[in-house]
Protein backbone atom coordinates (compact mmCIF):
# COMPACT_ATOMS: atom_id res chain seq x y z
CA UNK A 1 0.00 0.00 0.00
CA UNK A 2 1.39 3.36 -1.00
CA UNK A 3 0.10 6.89 -0.75
CA UNK A 4 -2.06 7.98 -3.71
CA UNK A 5 -1.48 11.38 -5.30
CA UNK A 6 -4.86 12.61 -4.06
CA UNK A 7 -3.71 12.72 -0.43
CA UNK A 8 -0.95 15.15 -1.26
CA UNK A 9 -3.24 17.30 -3.40
CA UNK A 10 -5.95 17.48 -0.73
CA UNK A 11 -3.33 18.24 1.92
CA UNK A 12 -1.84 21.03 -0.21
CA UNK A 13 -5.31 22.45 -0.91
CA UNK A 14 -6.07 22.49 2.82
CA UNK A 15 -2.72 24.12 3.65
CA UNK A 16 -3.32 26.73 0.95
CA UNK A 17 -6.79 27.48 2.35
CA UNK A 18 -5.41 27.89 5.86
CA UNK A 19 -2.77 30.28 4.53
CA UNK A 20 -5.42 32.18 2.57
CA UNK A 21 -7.50 32.54 5.73
CA UNK A 22 -4.44 33.94 7.49
CA UNK A 23 -3.79 36.46 4.71
CA UNK A 24 -7.41 37.61 4.59
CA UNK A 25 -8.26 37.64 8.30
CA UNK A 26 -5.14 38.69 10.22
CA UNK A 27 -4.65 42.31 11.25
CA UNK A 28 -0.90 42.24 11.75
CA UNK A 29 1.21 42.64 8.61
CA UNK A 30 3.78 40.08 9.82
CA UNK A 31 1.01 37.54 10.37
CA UNK A 32 -0.11 38.18 6.80
CA UNK A 33 3.43 37.35 5.65
CA UNK A 34 3.22 34.07 7.60
CA UNK A 35 0.03 33.24 5.73
CA UNK A 36 1.80 33.90 2.43
CA UNK A 37 4.60 31.52 3.51
CA UNK A 38 2.03 28.79 4.18
CA UNK A 39 0.49 29.32 0.74
CA UNK A 40 3.90 29.13 -0.97
CA UNK A 41 4.61 25.90 0.90
CA UNK A 42 1.32 24.40 -0.26
CA UNK A 43 2.21 25.23 -3.85
CA UNK A 44 5.64 23.66 -3.40
CA UNK A 45 4.13 20.43 -2.04
CA UNK A 46 1.94 20.31 -5.14
CA UNK A 47 4.90 20.85 -7.47
CA UNK A 48 6.98 18.12 -5.85
CA UNK A 49 4.02 15.70 -5.67
CA UNK A 50 3.31 16.14 -9.38
CA UNK A 51 7.00 15.66 -10.11
CA UNK A 52 7.08 12.38 -8.16
CA UNK A 53 3.81 10.98 -9.50
CA UNK A 54 3.79 12.16 -13.12
CA UNK A 55 7.37 12.47 -14.32
CA UNK A 56 10.02 11.30 -11.82
CA UNK A 57 12.55 10.87 -14.65
CA UNK A 58 12.31 14.59 -15.48
CA UNK A 59 13.71 16.86 -12.77
CA UNK A 60 11.83 20.03 -13.84
CA UNK A 61 9.36 19.91 -10.93
CA UNK A 62 12.11 20.06 -8.34
CA UNK A 63 13.94 22.84 -10.20
CA UNK A 64 10.75 24.88 -10.16
CA UNK A 65 10.36 24.24 -6.42
CA UNK A 66 13.92 25.52 -5.88
CA UNK A 67 12.99 28.71 -7.77
CA UNK A 68 9.94 29.12 -5.51
CA UNK A 69 12.28 28.84 -2.50
CA UNK A 70 14.45 31.67 -3.86
CA UNK A 71 11.47 33.88 -4.62
CA UNK A 72 9.99 33.21 -1.16
CA UNK A 73 13.24 34.24 0.50
CA UNK A 74 13.38 37.45 -1.56
CA UNK A 75 9.72 38.18 -0.84
CA UNK A 76 9.99 37.79 2.92
CA UNK A 77 13.19 39.89 3.09
CA UNK A 78 11.64 42.81 1.21
CA UNK A 79 8.31 42.42 3.02
CA UNK A 80 9.88 42.55 6.47
CA UNK A 81 12.07 45.52 5.48
CA UNK A 82 8.92 47.38 4.40
CA UNK A 83 7.11 46.46 7.62
CA UNK A 84 10.03 47.61 9.80
CA UNK A 85 10.29 50.84 7.82
CA UNK A 86 6.56 51.51 8.22
CA UNK A 87 6.77 50.66 11.93
CA UNK A 88 9.55 53.23 12.44
CA UNK A 89 7.56 56.01 10.85
CA UNK A 90 4.03 55.26 12.00
CA UNK A 91 4.53 53.03 15.06
CA UNK A 92 2.06 50.46 13.75
CA UNK A 93 2.10 47.17 11.87
CA UNK A 94 -1.68 46.80 11.60
CA UNK A 95 -2.54 46.57 7.92
CA UNK A 96 -5.75 48.59 8.37
CA UNK A 97 -3.89 51.56 9.85
CA UNK A 98 -1.32 51.78 7.06
CA UNK A 99 -3.52 53.94 4.84
CA UNK A 100 -1.11 56.70 3.88
CA UNK A 101 -1.63 56.11 0.17
CA UNK A 102 -5.39 55.65 0.40
CA UNK A 103 -7.30 58.25 -1.54
Amino acid at each position, binding site marked *: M*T*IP*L*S*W*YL*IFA*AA*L*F*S*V*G*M*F*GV*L*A*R*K*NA*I*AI*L*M*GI*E*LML*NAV*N*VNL*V*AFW*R*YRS*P*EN*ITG*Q*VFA*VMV*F*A*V*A*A*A*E*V*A*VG*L*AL*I*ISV*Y*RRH*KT*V*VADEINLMKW
Partner: protein
Amino acid sequence: MALQIIFILVAAVTLGAALMTVTSRNLVHSALWLIMSLFGVAVLYVLLNASFLAVAQVVIYIGAIAILIIFGVMMTRRLAIDTSRQINSTWWLAALLSLVFLGGLSWMLSNWDGFWIEAPVMAVNIDPVKQLGAALVAPNLYVLPFELASVLLLAALIGSIIIAYEKR
Protein backbone atom coordinates in the same frame (compact mmCIF):
# COMPACT_ATOMS: atom_id res chain seq x y z
CA MET B 1 0.86 0.90 5.31
CA ALA B 2 3.55 2.41 7.52
CA LEU B 3 4.02 5.19 4.97
CA GLN B 4 0.32 5.97 5.05
CA ILE B 5 0.29 6.21 8.85
CA ILE B 6 3.35 8.51 8.75
CA PHE B 7 1.68 10.65 6.09
CA ILE B 8 -1.56 11.01 8.05
CA LEU B 9 0.26 11.89 11.28
CA VAL B 10 2.56 14.41 9.60
CA ALA B 11 -0.27 15.97 7.57
CA ALA B 12 -2.44 16.32 10.70
CA VAL B 13 0.40 17.92 12.68
CA THR B 14 1.25 20.26 9.79
CA LEU B 15 -2.33 21.38 9.26
CA GLY B 16 -2.89 21.80 12.99
CA ALA B 17 0.26 23.89 13.30
CA ALA B 18 -0.81 25.95 10.28
CA LEU B 19 -4.21 26.56 11.90
CA MET B 20 -2.50 27.62 15.13
CA THR B 21 -0.25 29.92 13.07
CA VAL B 22 -3.19 31.84 11.66
CA THR B 23 -5.30 31.88 14.83
CA SER B 24 -2.79 32.31 17.68
CA ARG B 25 -3.08 35.65 19.49
CA ASN B 26 0.58 35.89 20.43
CA LEU B 27 2.68 36.51 17.33
CA VAL B 28 5.77 34.80 18.79
CA HIS B 29 3.74 31.63 19.32
CA SER B 30 2.41 32.08 15.81
CA ALA B 31 5.96 32.14 14.42
CA LEU B 32 6.89 29.01 16.40
CA TRP B 33 3.82 27.17 15.07
CA LEU B 34 4.86 28.26 11.58
CA ILE B 35 8.25 26.58 12.13
CA MET B 36 6.47 23.36 13.12
CA SER B 37 4.30 23.54 10.02
CA LEU B 38 7.34 24.11 7.78
CA PHE B 39 9.04 21.15 9.39
CA GLY B 40 6.02 18.96 8.60
CA VAL B 41 6.28 20.01 4.95
CA ALA B 42 9.97 19.02 5.02
CA VAL B 43 8.96 15.53 6.19
CA LEU B 44 6.52 15.32 3.28
CA TYR B 45 9.38 16.13 0.90
CA VAL B 46 11.27 13.16 2.34
CA LEU B 47 8.20 10.97 1.69
CA LEU B 48 8.19 12.27 -1.90
CA ASN B 49 11.89 11.26 -2.47
CA ALA B 50 12.91 14.92 -2.75
CA SER B 51 15.76 14.77 -0.24
CA PHE B 52 17.52 17.93 -1.42
CA LEU B 53 14.31 19.95 -1.08
CA ALA B 54 13.77 18.56 2.43
CA VAL B 55 17.21 19.79 3.50
CA ALA B 56 16.69 23.10 1.70
CA GLN B 57 13.32 23.47 3.42
CA VAL B 58 14.94 23.12 6.84
CA VAL B 59 17.90 25.37 5.98
CA ILE B 60 16.10 28.09 4.00
CA TYR B 61 12.59 28.17 5.44
CA ILE B 62 13.25 27.29 9.07
CA GLY B 63 16.83 28.55 9.26
CA ALA B 64 16.40 31.80 7.39
CA ILE B 65 12.82 32.81 6.69
CA ALA B 66 11.27 31.80 10.02
CA ILE B 67 14.13 33.38 11.96
CA LEU B 68 13.73 36.55 9.88
CA ILE B 69 10.02 36.58 10.74
CA ILE B 70 10.81 36.15 14.45
CA PHE B 71 13.23 39.09 14.16
CA GLY B 72 10.46 41.11 12.54
CA VAL B 73 8.06 40.21 15.34
CA MET B 74 10.63 41.22 17.96
CA MET B 75 11.39 44.53 16.27
CA THR B 76 7.72 45.52 16.14
CA ARG B 77 7.07 44.28 19.61
CA ARG B 78 4.41 46.64 20.85
CA LEU B 79 1.76 44.68 18.99
CA ALA B 80 3.40 41.30 19.39
CA ILE B 81 2.84 41.25 23.14
CA ASP B 82 -0.57 42.78 22.72
CA THR B 83 -2.90 39.81 23.13
CA SER B 84 -6.05 41.58 22.00
CA ARG B 85 -7.96 40.40 18.93
CA GLN B 86 -5.56 39.65 16.11
CA ILE B 87 -8.18 38.97 13.43
CA ASN B 88 -10.28 41.61 11.75
CA SER B 89 -14.04 42.02 11.85
CA THR B 90 -14.66 40.26 8.53
CA TRP B 91 -12.85 37.08 9.53
CA TRP B 92 -15.99 35.01 8.98
CA LEU B 93 -16.02 36.10 5.35
CA ALA B 94 -12.36 35.05 5.02
CA ALA B 95 -13.16 31.68 6.64
CA LEU B 96 -16.13 31.18 4.32
CA LEU B 97 -14.05 32.07 1.28
CA SER B 98 -11.27 29.69 2.31
CA LEU B 99 -13.74 26.85 2.89
CA VAL B 100 -15.43 27.49 -0.48
CA PHE B 101 -11.99 27.54 -2.11
CA LEU B 102 -11.04 24.24 -0.45
CA GLY B 103 -14.36 22.64 -1.40
CA GLY B 104 -14.18 23.87 -4.97
CA LEU B 105 -10.60 22.73 -5.39
CA SER B 106 -11.35 19.27 -3.93
CA TRP B 107 -14.40 18.90 -6.15
CA MET B 108 -12.47 19.93 -9.23
CA LEU B 109 -9.60 17.57 -8.42
CA SER B 110 -11.92 14.64 -7.70
CA ASN B 111 -13.28 14.93 -11.24
CA TRP B 112 -9.78 14.52 -12.64
CA ASP B 113 -8.74 11.08 -13.98
CA GLY B 114 -5.23 11.08 -12.53
CA PHE B 115 -6.42 11.86 -9.01
CA TRP B 116 -5.96 8.40 -7.52
CA ILE B 117 -2.78 7.32 -9.30
CA GLU B 118 -0.03 5.62 -7.34
CA ALA B 119 3.60 6.72 -7.40
CA PRO B 120 5.63 5.12 -10.21
CA VAL B 121 8.66 3.17 -9.04
CA MET B 122 11.80 5.28 -9.04
CA ALA B 123 14.51 3.90 -11.30
CA VAL B 124 17.34 2.73 -9.05
CA ASN B 125 20.11 4.04 -11.30
CA ILE B 126 18.82 7.64 -11.20
CA ASP B 127 19.79 9.81 -8.25
CA PRO B 128 17.38 12.80 -8.04
CA VAL B 129 19.89 14.91 -6.08
CA LYS B 130 22.59 14.36 -8.69
CA GLN B 131 20.09 15.00 -11.48
CA LEU B 132 18.91 18.22 -9.83
CA GLY B 133 22.45 19.47 -9.35
CA ALA B 134 23.35 18.73 -12.96
CA ALA B 135 20.13 20.30 -14.27
CA LEU B 136 20.73 23.53 -12.34
CA VAL B 137 24.10 24.15 -14.03
CA ALA B 138 23.58 22.56 -17.44
CA PRO B 139 23.64 25.27 -20.15
CA ASN B 140 20.83 23.63 -22.13
CA LEU B 141 18.64 23.21 -19.03
CA TYR B 142 18.23 25.63 -16.14
CA VAL B 143 21.45 27.57 -15.68
CA LEU B 144 19.83 30.83 -16.83
CA PRO B 145 16.83 30.69 -14.42
CA PHE B 146 19.25 29.66 -11.68
CA GLU B 147 21.46 32.70 -12.26
CA LEU B 148 18.39 34.92 -12.54
CA ALA B 149 17.21 33.64 -9.16
CA SER B 150 20.56 34.57 -7.63
CA VAL B 151 20.39 38.05 -9.17
CA LEU B 152 16.85 38.38 -7.79
CA LEU B 153 18.09 37.42 -4.32
CA LEU B 154 20.91 39.96 -4.54
CA ALA B 155 18.51 42.67 -5.67
CA ALA B 156 16.11 41.80 -2.83
CA LEU B 157 18.99 41.87 -0.34
CA ILE B 158 20.18 45.33 -1.42
CA GLY B 159 16.61 46.59 -1.70
CA SER B 160 15.65 45.46 1.78
CA ILE B 161 18.80 46.99 3.30
CA ILE B 162 18.00 50.31 1.62
CA ILE B 163 14.34 50.20 2.65
CA ALA B 164 15.08 49.35 6.28
CA TYR B 165 18.10 51.67 6.55
CA GLU B 166 17.75 54.37 9.16
CA LYS B 167 19.63 57.64 8.74
CA ARG B 168 21.37 58.75 11.89
